């Protein structure tokens, strides 16, 4: 099917058979114009799970971001190609010469969904609220208490015992609004990555009067009290069924084409897939097992959207216990995994093999650094035998979360280790939270972990391998690595900053802090009549869910 035929398809009604489709298309008009927009501009997507909260301060999961990104707008917003953070509620910002003071200028026409203007004070209140221990905002640490001046001792403020000290702590933060359209932030240290913190959807403003009226934990639970400043606002919430968004008429950026977005909460892949086939969903994440079915289907294969994500998975070795306290043994285990087979056969070509740390799509992406962990079964076995002696005496406890995808990948990795190295692997497949508890207690040998970028800056990645980090459990610790990362975080010059990060990545890979495996890509089906889709490498639950505002529905 050459390209021309595919383009014609845009015009036809999704008729029964492709042949019929082609006939209709032949007499269609030229490129899509506003005239052929569908009457009903409704977009139906699946966010899989019901959000726990739509209060920006208390959000943490991707299925919350999928809605939050449309209804709450931070100071800045990522560009689709992730090259920079573009102005959003803040028209512009400037950074003081010493890099410690960031001044944001709020748009005069930035308005809340109830028509009131967005002011600097709204941001001050929102960020102070995030740093209030009593709210226990999930993302307070490390993004806010690690950057904002005066926020350092957030960690040792107990909400009940030190309740009295909290007001002074909040007023002492480096947050101020000299006038209605200005918001000034003072930092603990110069942080070139701070623009990305200012573009996190959690750092969106919050109205003090609304919170006081409805209660800090109640205001975001119903459409009437959920006053937000994004391009859309929530019009209906039905528990475990769907959340409906409609345009925020007072939004400064003009009215979007799509007048209604229905975020379904369908957890069962087959159910979502059936809904897509029935035209009840406009986009769906292709279930892994259906990959080839979709690729070979004459109609569906033209509706595939393949988008790499800034998400990478690796083998998390517990370095406190043999055999993983030995670097050679770790490298041997990493070299024993055939990443190509994993990516192309097991994951059906939806993920790309990766024996490096920073994923493709970020400027720290260095594929050539992965030589030391390259797949080589023979070398791996000899390396392991030299390092720890007879492999058949080694038994590994391999922790796996009981999610079907994790289980299937786990079985493949266990088989690779047993066949290529001759070690014995106990696959412990248990309930997700039990896995996390055992990881925290270091009661494991091997675990497949991963990381999804909060924002496309190396800083967000390198801090997780630093000594004492809470997000990797293997206990990897290398003073040189820590020093390099600390220096890079505060380095103003971009070139030097990147070079420091590259050196740190090399040490990490050669140390085999983790056995890097693959980068995940999204493979979605999107109905042909969905126009203006803007996918990014940081999408939440659906391809293009950062920029629903740019979408329009063609006639169908």
């Amino acid at each position, binding site marked *: 099917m050459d390209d021309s035929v595919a383009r014609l398809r845009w015009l036809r009604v999704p008729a*029964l058979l492709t042949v019929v489709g082609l006939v209709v298309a032949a007499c269609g008009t030229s490129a899509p114009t506003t005239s052929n927009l569908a009457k009903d501009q409704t977009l139906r997507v699946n966010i899989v799970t019901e959000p726990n*909260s739509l209060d920006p301060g208390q959000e943490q999961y991707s299925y919350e971001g999928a809605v939050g990104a449309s209804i709450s707008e931070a100071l800045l917003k990522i560009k689709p190609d992730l090259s920079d953070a573009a102005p959003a509620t803040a028209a512009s910002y400037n950074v003081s010469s010493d890099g410690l003071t960031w001044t944001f200028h709020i748009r005069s026409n930035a308005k809340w969904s109830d028509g009131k203007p967005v002011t600097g004070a709204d941001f001050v209140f929102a960020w102070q609220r995030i740093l209030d*221990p009593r*709210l226990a905002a999930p993302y307070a640490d490390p993004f806010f208490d690690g950057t904002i001046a005066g926020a350092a001792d957030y960690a040792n403020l107990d909400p009940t015992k030190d309740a009295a000290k909290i007001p002074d702590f909040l007023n002492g933060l480096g947050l101020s609004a000299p006038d209605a359209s200005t918001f000034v932030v003072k930092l603990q240290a110069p942080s070139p990555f701070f623009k990305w913190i200012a573009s996190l959807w959690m750092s969106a403003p919050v109205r003090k009067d609304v919170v006081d009226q409805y209660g800090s934990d*109640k205001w*975001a*639970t119903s459409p009437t009290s959920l006053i937000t400043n994004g391009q859309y606002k929530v019009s209906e919430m039905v528990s475990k069924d769907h959340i409906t968004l409609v345009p925020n008429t007072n939004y400064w950026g003009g009215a979007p084409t799509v007048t209604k977005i229905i975020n379904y909460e369908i957890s*069962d892949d087959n159910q979502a897939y059936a809904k897509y086939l029935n035209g009840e969903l406009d986009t769906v994440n292709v279930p892994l097992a259906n990959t080839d079915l979709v690729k070979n289907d004459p109609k569906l294969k033209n509706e595939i959207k393949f988008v790499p994500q800034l998400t990478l998975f690796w083998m998390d070795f517990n370095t406190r216990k043999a055999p993983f306290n030995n670097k050679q043994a770790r490298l041997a285990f990493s070299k024993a995994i055939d990443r190509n087979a994993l990516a192309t056969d097991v994951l059906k070509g939806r993920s790309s093999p990766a024996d490096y740390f920073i994923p493709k799509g970020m400027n720290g992406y260095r594929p050539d650094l992965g030589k030391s962990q390259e797949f080589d079964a023979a070398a791996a076995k000899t390396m392991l035998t030299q390092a720890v002696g007879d492999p058949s005496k080694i038994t590994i406890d391999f922790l796996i979360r009981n999610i079907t995808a994790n289980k299937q990948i786990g079985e493949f990795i266990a088989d690779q280790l047993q066949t290529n190295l001759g070690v014995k692997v106990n696959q412990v497949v248990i309930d997700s939270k039990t896995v996390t508890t055992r990881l925290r207690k270091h009661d494991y040998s091997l675990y497949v972990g*991963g990381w999804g970028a909060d924002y496309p800056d190396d800083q967000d990645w390198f801090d997780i391998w630093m000594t004492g980090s809470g997000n990797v459990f293997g206990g990897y610790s290398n003073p040189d690595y820590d020093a390099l990362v600390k220096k890079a975080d505060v380095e103003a010059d971009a070139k030097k900053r990147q070079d420091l990060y590259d050196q740190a990545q090399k040490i990490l890979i050669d140390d085999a802090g983790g056995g890097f495996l693959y980068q995940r890509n999204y493979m979605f089906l999107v109905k042909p009549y969905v126009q203006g889709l803007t996918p990014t490498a940081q999408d939440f639950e659906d391809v293009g869910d950062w920029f629903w505002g740019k979408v329009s529905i063609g006639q169908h």
Partner: protein
Amino acid sequence: MAVAQGAPPRGALIAFKIPRGRGASLGLYVVRRILWLIPVLFFVITITFVLIHFAPGSPWDKEGKQLSAAVVRNLNAKYGLSDPFIVQYGRYLVNVVHFDFGLSFQYEDQPVSSLILKSWPPTATIGLLAFLMIVVFGIGTGVVAALRQNTWVDYIVVGFSTIGASTPAFVVGIILIIIFSVTLYRVTGGNFSLPTGDFALDQHLILPVVTLSVLPIAFIARLTRASTLEVLRQDYIRTAWAKGLRERLVVTKHVLKNSLIPVVSALGPTFAVLITGSVIVESVFNIPGIGRAFVIAVSSRDYPMILATTILFSVVVALANLIVDLLYTVIDPRVRLG
């Protein structure tokens, strides 16, 4: 002479003699059974609380990015989880007595009672409809199969009930979706097909109710068939024929009244399970029911939600079993309760 009939059951140690009239003793029995609900609930809450204490993991553990220690400490303080176990247990009991079931950890402090009130109706609707289908088709086919034993009707019922019983609900569910929504949609060019999922009081109910009732129908049909065959062999059936009664009368008045006893005892638990929701059917058909809510609550350790749903389940189950026991006395006069 034969043993004195109606010898009092051994161990009837009730201090005062219940008045002989059937009505009075039944009313008293029901009251006593409902009063028994209180110790039962107490045990259920205690066991659940202990289980929660032992269950690994905390509500704040996450799959991907972990919360910092400070945030976890603040969350525990906010929900009182840092208090000693006994304090939490005592506080919960006091709240329950005042019908305050606390706030959900998961859904940003929405009161658990409102979450349950929202998620139980879909489950109950589908459960009740499925129960009706089970009673009508289960018992119906079972009796017909027994009356027409070893004929093609019998073989179909046995065959169907076995296939029905050996395919798990989610397989049955998705096959029905593939046939009646996806393929039907494609074949009829999109203008007729059953909805793939969601909940509404219209044709959205058809597929979930059918999926939910396939297995129980199979079981009840087999059970009815077995017990009806037993009863058909009894002497009093021959007496009924000898009296010259029409077949319809023999079946309804004599056969069914006796063969339904084991079926009622099996319908009791089936009813209780249906009403408390099937997580499988609810997730396959994307129904916002309480079955799924309970599983999500357990896997995310939403303690107040777990406790509240368990209390709801135990009340529903206890009442269902009470109804079944009362039905016994209606169906079988020989059975005396209490």
